[in-house]
C-alpha cells in the first residue's frame, strides 16, 4: 500500500460527486416545473383551514381518565357523526368498555353497542350475573396512535403511515383492504369499512380508524369525543406546547398505557385503571 491507489479512486469519487450535483439540481428543478394537479387541489383546500399547520411543530397526546368516565356514550355518538363511522355497533373508531372486577379478581368486560347508548345498571358480560363485584370502571378506547405501530409495519402497500405529529393515518387510495392491519393491531382499533358505507375520503373495503379527528386538531380544535365529554374524562393536547394541560396530566397523574408489553409505545395514556387492560 503506497497510498496512490486510494487517492486516485477518491479523486474519481469526488469528480463523480461534483458531476452528480448539477444533475440532482436539474432533476429537482424539473420536478418543481412539473407540479401535479393534485398539488393544486391540496393547496387550494388548505388556505384558511390547515394551510398554516406544520406537523413538525406538534406532538399530540391523549389521556383517558377511567376514574372520571361515566359511560354515557356521548363520545361514541359524536365520533360516529363527526367521522361518518358506520352506525352498525360493530364498527367503531372509539368505544367505551366497562370493566367489572369481581371478588375473585376476574375482570369482566362489557360494551353493549360500543357503549353508544350508555350502560345498563349491571354488567352484561358473560358470567357477570350473580358475581360479587369488587369494583367497576369505564375505559374509553380508541386508536393508540402508537409510536411503534404494528399496523404500519404489517401494511404491504405502505397505505398506513405515521405523520410527523404522531398521528397514524391511512391513505385510502393506496389501501387494498387486505386487513393485515386490523389483525395486527393489538388494541382492535381498526375495521374495514363495510360495503354500502363510505368514509369521508375512502370508500367501502378500506381500513379506517381514529385519526384524533385530524381535520379538527389541525384547526386548533379538540377531537369531537373530547369536545362532548361532559366530565373531562378525555384530554387531548400537544406535548410540544408548554401551555397545554395535557402536560400537567402526563406529569402529575400516574398514567399508564395499555399492553405495554407489546412495545407499541402508545400516545394514549390512562389514569385510574386497575389490573390488566387490553
Amino acid at each position, binding site marked *: 500500500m503506497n497510498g496512490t491507489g486510494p487517492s486516485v479512486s477518491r479523486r474519481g469519487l469526488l469528480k463523480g460527486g461534483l458531476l452528480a450535483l448539477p444533475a440532482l439540481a436539474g*432533476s429537482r428543478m*424539473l420536478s418543481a416545473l412539473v407540479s401535479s394537479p393534485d398539488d393544486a387541489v391540496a393547496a387550494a383546500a*388548505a388556505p384558511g383551514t390547515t394551510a398554516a399547520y406544520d406537523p413538525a411543530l406538534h406532538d399530540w397526546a391523549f389521556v383517558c381518565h377511567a376514574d372520571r368516565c*361515566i359511560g354515557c356514550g356521548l363520545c361514541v355518538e359524536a365520533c360516529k357523526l363527526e367521522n361518518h363511522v358506520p352506525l352498525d355497533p360493530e364498527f367503531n373508531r372509539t368505544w367505551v368498555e366497562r370493566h367489572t372486577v369481581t371478588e375473585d379478581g376476574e375482570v369482566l368486560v362489557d360494551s353493549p353497542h360500543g357503549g353508544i347508548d350508555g*350502560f345498563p345498571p349491571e354488567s352484561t358480560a358473560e358470567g357477570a350475573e350473580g358475581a360479587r363485584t369488587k369494583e367497576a370502571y369505564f375505559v374509553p378506547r380508541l386508536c393508540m396512535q402508537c409510536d411503534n405501530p404494528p399496523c404500519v409495519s404489517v401494511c404491504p402497500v405502505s397505505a398506513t403511515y405515521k405523520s410527523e405529529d404522531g398521528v397514524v393515518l391511512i391513505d385510502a387510495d393506496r389501501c387494498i383492504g387486505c386487513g393485515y392491519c386490523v389483525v395486527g393491531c393489538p388494541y382492535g382499533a381498526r375495521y374495514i369499512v363495510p360495503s354500502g358505507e363510505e368514509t*369521508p375520503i375512502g370508500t367501502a373495503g378500506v381500513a379506517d380508524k381514529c385519526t384524533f379527528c*385530524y381535520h379538527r386538531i389541525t384547526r386548533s380544535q379538540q377531537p369531537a369525543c373530547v369536545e362532548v365529554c361532559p366530565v373531562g374524562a378525555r384530554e387531548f393536547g400537544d406535548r410540544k406546547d408548554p401551555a397545554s394541560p395535557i402536560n400537567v396530566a402526563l406529569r402529575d397523574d400516574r398514567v399508564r398505557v395499555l399492553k405495554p408489553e407489546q412495545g407499541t409505545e402508545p400516545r394514549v395514556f390512562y389514569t385510574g385503571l386497575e389490573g390488566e387492560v387490553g
Partner: protein
Amino acid sequence: MTRIAALRATTRRRIAGAAAAVRAARPRTTRGVVRASLKAGALVVALAIALFVVGSAAAAFYDQYGFHPERNAHTWAALEPSYVDGAICQTCHAGEGAQLETSRHQTVSCEACHGPLGEHAADPVSAMIPIEAPPDTLCATCHSSSSGKPVGFPQVDVATHYRSGVCRACHDAHSTAVVRPPEVSHPLENLPACTTCHKPEGLKALPAGHEEAADPVCLGCHGAGADGLHGGER
C-alpha cells in the same frame, strides 16, 4: 555525421508535422469557433429536452403511484368538522353560557346535549333544527345509575326517582338549579299523609331524600295518577 543530419531532419519533420496537426486541430477562424459552440449548444439543448421529457414522465408516474404521506395528511386535514368549538355558541346564546359558567354543568359542552352544531353555527337562521330542546331521556344518558360510575357522580334510578320524563320540571339543565315544587298551602294539604301508603317498603316507594318534603307538597305534582285515587289531573 550523416546519421546526425538524418536525425535532425527527422526531428524537424516531426516538429513541423506536430505543429501542422496542432494548427489543424485548432479552429483558425472565429467562424470555426461559432460553429463549434453551436454544435455544443445544440447537444446541450437536445439533452435538456430529453431529460425534461423523461423527467416529466417519471414525475407523472411518481405523482400517480408514488408515496405522498404529506398530501394524504392534507386530505384528512381538509375535511369539514361537524362539531364546532363550544365557545362560538355564546356569541348568540350568552344567557345560557353565563348560566353554565356557574353551574355544575360547566364542563358540559353545548354539543354534548344539543348534538353537532356546525351547520347551525355557519347559518344560524336557516339551520335552526338542531337547536330544539333535547328530550328528558337525555338526562338519563349520564345520570341513570349504573355500576362503573365514579363514586360521587350524581346518579339516580330513573324508574323510582320522581317520574321519568319530567326531569326539567325541577332541574334546570343550564344552571343545574333544582326547583322543588312550591311549598305553599293548597287544597290537598288536608289529605292523609302520603307516606301512610308510600312508605319505603309500600306501594311505589318514595325517592330517596324526599321523606322530609313529601307530605305537604308531593301531591301537587304526584297526584295525577291513572288510578284516580288522587283525583286524576293535578
